[in-house]
């Protein structure tokens, strides 16, 4: 429980978002161009962060299908800035110890002739902590 609360506070702090300002109008979701690709939609991000349900968000593919187009930020009548929450959860996942996104054994599979070696090295550095 305490962990859940800490995580929520961390997300709110990182994003600078006040999720309580949301009036649940759904304009963010109405405007989102990536709606079909996302399991959790911008208004759900806001609501779930407010409730403290961060873990399902961290596991969701939606973190990577959000285009970071900021349409939701632009349109939200209450200045909630949902995309910043998506970004914060994404960062939380990246920063999480032990929850590697890139494991050494996955590397050969991802190998691509055209990919510069440098990119692989930096991705490995960034995504495996």
């Amino acid at each position, binding site marked *: 429980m305490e962990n859940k609360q800490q995580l929520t506070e961390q997300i709110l702090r990182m994003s600078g978002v006040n999720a309580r*300002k949301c*009036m*649940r*109008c*759904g*304009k*963010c*979701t*109405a*405007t*989102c161009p990536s*709606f*079909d690709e996302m399991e959790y*939609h911008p*208004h*759900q991000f806001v609501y779930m962060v407010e409730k403290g349900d961060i873990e399902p968000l961290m596991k969701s593919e939606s973190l990577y299908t959000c285009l970071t187009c900021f*349409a939701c930020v632009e*349109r*939200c*009548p*209450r*200045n909630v800035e949902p995309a910043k929450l998506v970004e914060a959860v994404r960062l939380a996942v990246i920063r999480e110890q032990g929850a590697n996104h890139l494991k050494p054994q996955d590397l050969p599979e991802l190998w691509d002739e055209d990919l510069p070696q440098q990119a692989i090295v930096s991705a490995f550095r960034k995504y495996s902590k």
Partner: protein
Amino acid sequence: MQKIGVFVCWCGSNIAGTVDVHAVAETLKKEPGVVFSTDYQYMCSEAGQNLIKDSIKEYGLTGVVICSCSPRMHENTFRKAAQSVGLNPYMVEVANIREQCSWIHKDMATATEKAVILGRAAIAKVHLNAPLTAGESPVVKRALVIGGGIAGIQTALDIAEAGFEVDIVEKSPTIGGKMAQIDKTFPTLDCAACILTPKMVEAAQQEKIKIYSYSEVDEVKGFVGNFSVKIRRKARYVNEDICTGCGVCTEKCPQKKVPNEFNLGMDNRRAIYIPFAQAVPKVATIDPNYCTMLKTGKCGVCSKVCTAKAIDYTQKDEFVEAQYGAIVVATGFNPISLEKYDEFAYSQSPDVVTSLEYERLMNAAGPTSGTLLRPSDLTHPKTIVFVQCVGSRCDGGDKGKPYCSKVCCMYTAKHAMLTREKYPDTDVYVFYIDVRTPGKNFDEFYRRAVEDYGVHYIKGMVGKVVPQDGKLKVQASDLLSNEQLHIDADMVVLAAAIEPDKTARPLATMLTASMDTNDFFTEAHPKLRPVESPTAGVFLSGMCQGPKDIPETVSQASAAAAKVIGLLAKDKLTCNPCVAHSDEQLCNGCSSCEKVCPYGAITYQDKEFRMPNRTVAVRRVASVNPAVCQGCGACTVACPSGAMDLNGFSNRQIMAEVDAICK
């Protein structure tokens, strides 16, 4: 030396819970001049007041200090009590040991200490108090109503009905306001014109009502009971007394391409026009921005066709100066501009309209003669999307208004229902955040739209509207089914937020009436004095005070009228004796005080003063009109020579209080 009585109130546990009231009474007993000191549970109660009265008689008190709640609450109560036993009411002082002490402190020792200090300050002041007598000022028995919408009309009718003269100043060529543009009215769906026009006609025929249409208030001077107002009667280039309203000129004028504001620019009128058939007064007005005669000196068609010879191209603005006892503000509202909401494509497609425009499109006197046709190609729309809360309930600033506009949920239900009733083949969607329908028969009305008329109410918002291939591509969210919807609509109707008329703020400045950050007029008390402005003699009616529908507007209009009647029924008003006066010996006539006085109460006179050796010097000195002065005290601080002083709050009294606190 004064003989002072101190009365410390417990206010139940409100004060006594945090302040040791007994200790306060005991400590203050030792102050110089205090001959009696006590504490009591409720000083404002009848028993409490009797305690004060009896003590005044028994101890022959010449001054009274009450340690209780804010003087705003009960100063008057205690003054009256003192007066009833022959003590001058201005010998009573209130030390606020509730709001300024018990409510903000937790620790009893600190709170008690502070209560004693506040009590000491009040005692120090009473030592310097002198009896004051309130003067009287006469009441001009005529009222002014600014704004001739339904609010202004109703207020004026009620005042006139009670037998008082009342003038309406309306800035547009006709009275009626927004209600004249509405087609049918929720929740009963009666036709707005059918219920409004009889009232407009009644206002025109009522002997006690004078309507200044096409006029504005330019200047307001004076004070409650005696305002002096300068009214600008804008030149309409038509003699109002001669024009018969036949309308021939409005048909013959060759200048045909003037956007018709009554139909919100959706059709055209001529340069000379009568806003609508039932206009009051029914006289023509020339629009100087479009009239070729006024612009180039060539044309004169209207003057030729007018059989009454009413046209006068040389007319100038005229000014009327009139006196009023009371002023009612009824300046109403307007829908906000939707320019900044690009996502709804309002400026890109004529088929995206505001709700007020939709009223005109449904109205028999509207641009489509009451047949619902979409503006771009005049075809019958088969799918209509309504969007609620456009620009309302936002985070303020650039995003839009922070308040709920209150009427749009209901009028949207009305539009949806009427559309489905007249055109059952039309699909109607309403996107809502919440449906807010408190009010008598309101929720039932909205449910009828859903249950009997099959309007699709969708919990969600429209994200964007894109005009494409003759359709409006609407992308929206349906939050209950967690879907994103794509609707091909023929029309989109936006329930635009409402805002106070833009002229309200300059008017408020003229009236020294206060406004909130949204430019709605503020009431004297949000619960207990809802139709009065904090400025004495200024009353509020209708949307200018906050969002409201017609039933609420009319109730408030009549309430404001009742307050005005109560004021005009008096022959004289008791003035506040706490007014400023200048010490002519000290005044050097520098004009500093005149510049800061918000009420224009200060004038200067040349006076002769006897000087040493029998010489005489003439000096310019300030004098205050006590009937106009409101006792704000601005002049006393502005005066560099310390000549200005305020009765009841003299510099000496205030310094004595400060000294007592700092001792």
